[in-house]
């Protein structure tokens, strides 16, 4: 039954439908990378909304309109005098459809499609969605189907490919609920009119709209993903179904660490695209001393670039092997600092373990090591698992690197380096216990060339020529410096089109990006320049990271997903793997390699010892005053204890500010209703009387226009005995003040009496109606005066 909805109700519903269609199409267009500008999307959404309205009014006509163009376009295109644009469009479409069918046959679900076909898909989806949603909303007064369609579309996008789809999905759900409210209200009005129901007041929209928006906001900020973790049995059950792991957006316990699991890889298997880092805590680490430079925790290493993604070369990683220690790949005379890092894993990352470069021991878990010095647990690491990594962290010295590199390559060593060598202690290296002899490890690793293109190669060569870089280290420095200066850091960087080389897209089109862009470019360019390099993903803690706690003479930090990072490790012949970071982040400066060839503070041999300076301990005044949280258990800090590392919680701040503003406005409104004690004379009496009248009017005791003050005073006084006398006196005062002859002397106590009347009336109303209702009536809108 099609009911006669009021025009205003139809317009409001169509407005909400337009918004929902727009959000849906914007999400789909972004997801499919169909280039449609906002005005075009708005136009399509408007047309689709109109089509939806038509489908509600005349379903058969809408169906005809939907089917007619696909049938007519081929026919019209064959007419000899057909417009050129039509013929071109038809031909393009034909070509793209054929290509799409071919791709589907070859690639299956991963098939892509052309721009014209994509736009056609978007339009068709918009039309069908709007038709279904309009028929449900305008016809049945509901929007469940709308919500379901949006959930299915955005849910599948989120599950398989695209993390930000959750944000689009949330926005869409809020709009769908809004549509539901409007549709329900309109339908209710129509049903009431149809059934002859006498309607006193139509349903207001304010409260339902506010409530659904609050629910949507609450659903967005409520915690996620805490249920399966505590129930091992169910978790293991979910492990048995691989599809569930896939739908988990690669966040399952079994999934190894990668930027995808931290939100830095929005398109899943392919690189690039705008990201919105989340502040979910991933790790908690405790160090013996406070951070003063960037700490790189390695989580995954990739060697080979495919053009759209990085992959691990099995040859480089070798097979995992249980071990007691990790072989070092650094020159034994390299400066190092022994450090112990306690890691608590707050998120499941499969078997991945996190450690800086040159870790050599791990305790607390059974572990294995691969050819890239990556540590892996033998079993899936459970949430809240703890382990301790002992690392001989390199203290980079550019001079030392250059010295050993030139020595290994047989290049002449500059005189300034040679001068220092005489004073250097490198002749007596100290090999940490458990570290295998390094000589064999310093053999050049296997080279894995990536998908480098001619333009990248040419650009690399140009940069290196300009920097006059000869050795691998000099090349790495040149590229790192150039990348840091050439392009800005941008989390909203665009993604390349399917099939486009990601690095080429970054260097020549996008020219902005985040860590993945810069690290990928540098790694590939280094490989193109003949330097073995690999891309490392993990977490980078800037030296400026806020300390979470300084308890037990340890510095504790919570590592969040937003700290996920990608950087480069390049092989420097004769020295080993060196870390480079080409991403121009303000909080992560270029790695300090200023340590001279001869180490100034030497403990035993070439190994610098951890600082024992008391000012570096937990009592360091630079850490700021200790607060209650600092003394508490770090494990209980959770996500909210990472104030320094996380961005501000804008939702909460907005909510708080809104609440404060509401309270201030309410107080102001209350205050405005109170007579001002400073007013004296006639104006004081009239003001106090008017406000007393207004106060009582808010409770339904107002003076009618036909009543004199005395009559009103008598009427109210009969019902509220306490007010009887003050009201009569005040009525007389008011009459005299308001209408008394000019020059009449007014009793000086009259303003105070009338003000006291207001106080008495206020008290009487509060007692009569209770505090809550009293407050509400005073804050609410006053009823109309009769």
């Amino acid at each position, binding site marked *: 039954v099609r009911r006669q909805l009021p025009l205003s109700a139809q317009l409001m519903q169509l407005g909400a439908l337009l918004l929902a269609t727009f959000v849906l199409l914007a999400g789909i267009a972004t997801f499919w990378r169909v280039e449609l500008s906002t005005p075009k999307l708005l136009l399509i959404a408007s047309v689709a909304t109109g089509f939806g309205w038509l489908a509600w009014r005349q379903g058969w006509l809408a169906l005809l309109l939907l089917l007619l163009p696909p049938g007519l376009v081929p026919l019209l295109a064959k007419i000899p005098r057909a417009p050129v644009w039509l013929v071109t469009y038809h031909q393009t479409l034909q070509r793209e459809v054929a290509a799409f069918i071919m791709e589907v046959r070859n690639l299956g679900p991963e098939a892509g499609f052309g721009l014209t076909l994509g736009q056609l898909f978007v339009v068709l989806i918009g039309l069908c969605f709007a038709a279904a949603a309009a028929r449900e909303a305008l016809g049945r007064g509901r929007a469940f189907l709308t919500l*379901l369609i949006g959930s299915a579309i955005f849910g599948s996008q*989120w599950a398989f490919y695209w993390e930000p789809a959750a944000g689009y999905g949330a926005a869409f759900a809020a709009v769908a609920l809004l549509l539901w409210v409007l549709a329900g209200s309109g339908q209710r009005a129509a049903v009431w009119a149809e059934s002859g129901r006498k309607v006193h007041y139509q349903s207001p929209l304010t409260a339902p709209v506010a409530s659904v928006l609050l629910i949507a906001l609450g659903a967005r900020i409520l915690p996620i993903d805490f249920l399966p973790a505590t129930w091992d049995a169910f978790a293991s059950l979910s492990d048995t179904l691989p599809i569930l792991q896939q739908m988990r957006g690669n966040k399952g316990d079994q999934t190894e660490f990668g930027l995808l699991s931290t939100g830095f890889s929005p398109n899943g298997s392919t690189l690039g695209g705008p990201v919105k880092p989340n502040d979910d805590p991933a790790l908690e680490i405790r160090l013996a001393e406070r951070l003063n430079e960037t700490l790189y925790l390695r989580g995954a290493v990739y060697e080979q670039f495919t053009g759209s993604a990085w992959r691990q070369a099995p040859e480089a990683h070798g097979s995992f092997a249980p071990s007691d220690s990790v072989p070092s790949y650094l020159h034994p005379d390299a400066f190092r600092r022994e450090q112990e890092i306690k890691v608590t894993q707050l998120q499941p990352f499969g078997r991945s373990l996190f450690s800086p470069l040159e870790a050599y021991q791990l305790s607390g878990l059974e572990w294995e090591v691969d050819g890239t010095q990556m540590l892996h647990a033998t079993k899936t690491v459970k949430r809240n698992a703890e382990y301790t990594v002992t690392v001989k962290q390199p203290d980079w010295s550019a001079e030392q690197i250059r010295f050993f590199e030139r020595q290994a390559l047989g290049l002449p060593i500059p005189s300034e380096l040679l001068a220092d060598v005489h004073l250097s202690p490198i002749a007596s290296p100290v090999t940490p216990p458990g570290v295998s002899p390094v000589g064999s490890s310093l053999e050049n690793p296997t080279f894995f060339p990536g998908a480098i293109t001619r333009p990248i190669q040419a650009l690399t060569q140009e940069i290196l020529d300009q920097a006059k870089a000869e050795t691998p280290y000099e090349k790495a420095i040149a590229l790192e410096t150039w990348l840091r200066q050439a392009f800005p850091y941008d989390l909203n960087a665009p993604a390349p089109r399917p099939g486009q080389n990601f690095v080429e897209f970054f260097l020549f089109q996008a020219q902005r990006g985040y860590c993945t862009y810069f690290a990928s470019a540098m790694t590939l360019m280094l490989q193109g320049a003949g330097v073995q390099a690999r891309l490392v993903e993990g977490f980078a803690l800037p030296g400026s990271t806020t300390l979470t706690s300084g308890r037990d003479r340890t510095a504790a930090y919570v590592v969040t997903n937003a700290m996920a990072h990608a950087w480069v490790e390049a092989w420097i012949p004769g020295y080993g793997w060196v870390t480079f970071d080409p991403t121009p982040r303000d909080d992560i400066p270029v790695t300090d390699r200023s340590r001279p060839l001869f180490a100034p503070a030497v403990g035993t041999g070439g190994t610098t010892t951890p600082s024992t300076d008391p000012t570096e301990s937990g009592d360091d005044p630079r850490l700021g005053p200790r607060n209650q949280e600092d003394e508490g258990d770090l494990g209980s800090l959770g996500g909210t204890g990472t104030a320094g590392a996380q961005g501000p919680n804008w939702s909460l701040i907005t909510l708080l500010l809104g609440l404060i503003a509401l309270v201030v406005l309410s107080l102001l409104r209350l205050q405005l209703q109170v007579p001002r004690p400073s007013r004296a004379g006639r104006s004081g009496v009239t003001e106090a009387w008017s406000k007393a009248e207004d106060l009582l009017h808010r409770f339904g005791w107002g003076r009618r226009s036909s009543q004199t003050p005395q009559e009103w005073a008598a009427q109210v006084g009969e019902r509220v005995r306490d007010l009887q006398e003050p009201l009569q006196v005040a009525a007389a005062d008011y009459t005299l003040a308001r209408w008394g002859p000019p020059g009449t002397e007014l009793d000086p106590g009259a303003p105070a009496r009338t003000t006291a009347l207001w106080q008495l009336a206020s008290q009487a109303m509060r007692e009569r109606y209770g505090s809550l209702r009293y407050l509400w009536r005073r804050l609410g809108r006053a009823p109309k005066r009769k």
Partner: protein
Amino acid sequence: MRLRLRDYRLPVLIVAAFLFAWFAGGRFPYFLLWLGLGVTGGALLWTAYGLRKVVGEWRVNRQEAAVGEPVELTLRLENDGILPLPWLELDDETPSNLVASDAPKQATHLPLLGSRILRFTIRPKRRGFYQLGPVRLRLGDGLSVAQGERVIGSPVRLTVYPRIVPIESLDLALGLPFGPVRTRERAFEDPSNQSEIRPYRPGDNPRQIHWKTTARRGELMLREYELNAAASLLVIPDLQAGAPPEASELAIELSASLTAWAIRQRLEVGLISHGAERIVAQPSRGERSYREILEGLTRAEASGVLPLSRVLEQESALFGARTTLAVITARIDHHLVDALLRLRPRHPIMLFCLDGPSFGAPFALDHEILHLLARKRITIFILPAEADLRHLDQYRLYQPEGVTAL
């Protein structure tokens, strides 16, 4: 109080989202889970809270009315809760065959801590004692996901008297002491109906001396009353089961109208009926008697077992001397004829015959019998279904000698 979900698809979505979130985890399934739970749970809580917080207060502008007279009912709804109620539907569930309401279905919304006044104007269709209402209240959330129902009973009791038609012309069967035709009826003075004051003549009843006028004029003055042949009127409707309901209702309406007319004429009036219960009101004057008879007629039901002839026989001891009997029936048989003829010498009788076929009854009046009764100076009225009771005289069959208008 009943609470239910109007749409069971949302719980299905919640379960699906929960299963996804449980097994697969992740942001979006949890968002859907919280959203579904928020919407459904919020709707249920809101509705349940609203149901508890709505208070209804009834008022009625009168507690007695005749059939067809308007009665103003007011229902003041107050929301004591701090949540507004976006919509409320109210259905007046007073049976529609008893009353006609101008707005039995109403709708509104209730602001938080606010109130609304709903007015119903009802017109009773049938006589009786009613408890008005109840009103069924339905309310829900803004999405209409949940709906709650509650019945607000009303303490309002209404007495609906039978319809009273103001009889404009009716000749009461009286014994007339004057006029062209000699009659055997004896006239009585009606002390309540003073005619004039005249000088005392020897032989006059000294109890009728008007002392005030006597004192003023200085001579004995006597008050004289109108002569009245009928001492009282006794209404006897036939409420034996089997007659068409419309006929029984007309009998009761006619009884009430005759009562009102008699009260206006300052006659003593009484009632005898044997319906579901025996109702007897001794002839008397005044408002109290009037109320007594009307209340008797209000609760009278045409489900008696005694035929009217037996009623007349059984109750004849209660018939006072000179009481005019107003007998109302749709069925006339020889038993009734015999009973009427037996009573006729002692009582003037007005027989109101309801024309059975016009009420859809299978039996009809025997006009020969009616003529026979008329010749025996029983005043006969034949009333069809749509009879205009204001002008009863037009339905009069025969006017025997010696009967005139009052």
